[in-house]
């Protein structure tokens, strides 16, 4: 990107800017789409801002200039919609499910969700307040298990870091996170995961000066972008 002085240098100048706020878990996929989009739209500079979905909603509410918002859950998207900051209805563009993540070689020999309840297993989860944490609780609840983590991490990244460093024996994260981490961790799929599906909605932001471009970005995500998302481990949208 350039080093333009403020949030978005819009107008009829040589470059137009499209600002996309997206959940952190979308970083890799959206960065790939950015290239594609910029190739297809000469003179357009896409600026991506990643963060926790709730942070991003708060920023938009505080006046951050965003054209598109892609959330990692429906709850935060609902906040945007109730705040009358969404232009139109959100569209779901991906889903994600949980998986067990273990260090390479699976030293603790975890094979099922029930194995996580072992007393000698150092288990880390996301804190209940963030989407992957609440999903983890739900999964355990449906399976009738009580999980006793040694730490409730702030984000998926922190869970991965703990497992990757061997500090924890196992954790619960999204499939896409395991895919992104490559061979630094291993995933252990478990059947109960299908009960709790996380949905990713996207919407154009109210008052965007680049409503046209915003819609084109959304179209890309819903269209050609699906392949990129699939490669990263995301499931197809339900509807």
């Amino acid at each position, binding site marked *: 990107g350039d080093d333009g002085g403020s949030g978005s240098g819009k107008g009829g100048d040589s470059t137009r800017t499209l600002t996309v706020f997206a959940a952190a878990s979308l970083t890799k996929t959206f960065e790939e789409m950015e290239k594609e989009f910029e190739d297809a739209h000469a003179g357009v500079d896409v600026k991506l801002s990643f963060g*926790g979905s*709730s942070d991003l909603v*708060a920023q938009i509410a505080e006046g951050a200039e965003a054209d598109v918002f892609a959330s990692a859950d429906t709850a935060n998207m609902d906040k945007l919609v109730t705040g009358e900051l969404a232009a139109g209805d959100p569209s779901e563009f991906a889903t994600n499910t949980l998986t067990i993540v273990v260090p390479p070689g699976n030293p603790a020999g975890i094979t099922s969700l029930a194995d996580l309840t072992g007393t000698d297993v*150092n288990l*880390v989860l996301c*804190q209940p*307040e*963030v989407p992957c944490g609440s999903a983890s609780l739900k999964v355990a609840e449906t399976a009738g298990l009580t999980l006793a*983590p*040694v*730490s*409730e*991490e*702030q984000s998926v990244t*922190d869970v991965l*870091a*703990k497992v990757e*460093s*061997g*500090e924890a024996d196992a954790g619960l994260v999204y499939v896409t996170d395991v895919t992104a981490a490559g061979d630094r961790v291993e995933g252990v799929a478990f059947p109960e995961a299908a009960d709790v599906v996380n949905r990713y909605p996207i919407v154009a932001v109210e008052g965007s000066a680049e409503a046209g471009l915003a819609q084109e970005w959304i179209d890309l995500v819903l269209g050609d972008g699906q392949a990129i998302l699939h490669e990263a481990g995301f499931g197809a949208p339900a509807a």
Partner: protein
Amino acid sequence: MARTRHVGLPRWLFAPALLAGVFVVLPVASMATRIAWGEFPTLVTSEAAGSALVLSLKTSTASTLLCLLFGIPLAAVLARSEARWLGVLRSLVLLPLVLPPVVGGIALLSTFGRQGLLGEHLETLGIRIAFSSIAVVLAQTFVSLPFLVVSLEGALRTAGERYDVVAASLGARPTTVLRRVTLPLVLPGLASGAVLAFARSLGEFGATITFAGSLEGTTRTLPLLIYNLRVTDADAAVAMSLVLVVVAVLVIGLVRPRGAL
């Protein structure tokens, strides 16, 4: 009573000083105005809040003591020795200041973690640091140590060595000089340093979450709790922040020696 007159400060100086004060105080004050004071008591007296507060105070005190224990010698060596390699060490001590705390946490993991440089050996001895309160203290010490060292070294340099020399010539051994002359003379600087270290420990978040994790009663200090709350209940987070601020101001106000910062 007769009073030594201070050299008056230039009057224009008060304008930027006031601005600086306002710049620091106003945001906190305006945040305070947003609190739903009705719910405040329930919010801040919850069990989670209580245990986080106690943990924060305990670990911050411990890490401040560690900072004093190791930081005073380091500052003394940096201020008084003239060896070349100390210049390098002096820059290195600033590392935790520039490292984003999260990266500091990663660094600590790569040293004291289960597969870390030292952690491996500790593991075989049956000692595990990660996910324990000790990890919290280590993380806080790591980020706070430079504060103590830098302030104290500055104070030691400003104070100079004239009185140390007199003490030595009166027969005082280096340890006696340090204890009875050097440190008492830089008490204001030492106090500032300790206060900075304590405050930094109390507010420490990134390294703690990365290195120690977040579990109520063991590793979830007040800043970690505040971060948790923020996702679900921004008001509660702000309320707890105010508690943190008040606690810090109280502790610092009670502890600091007269005349020192």
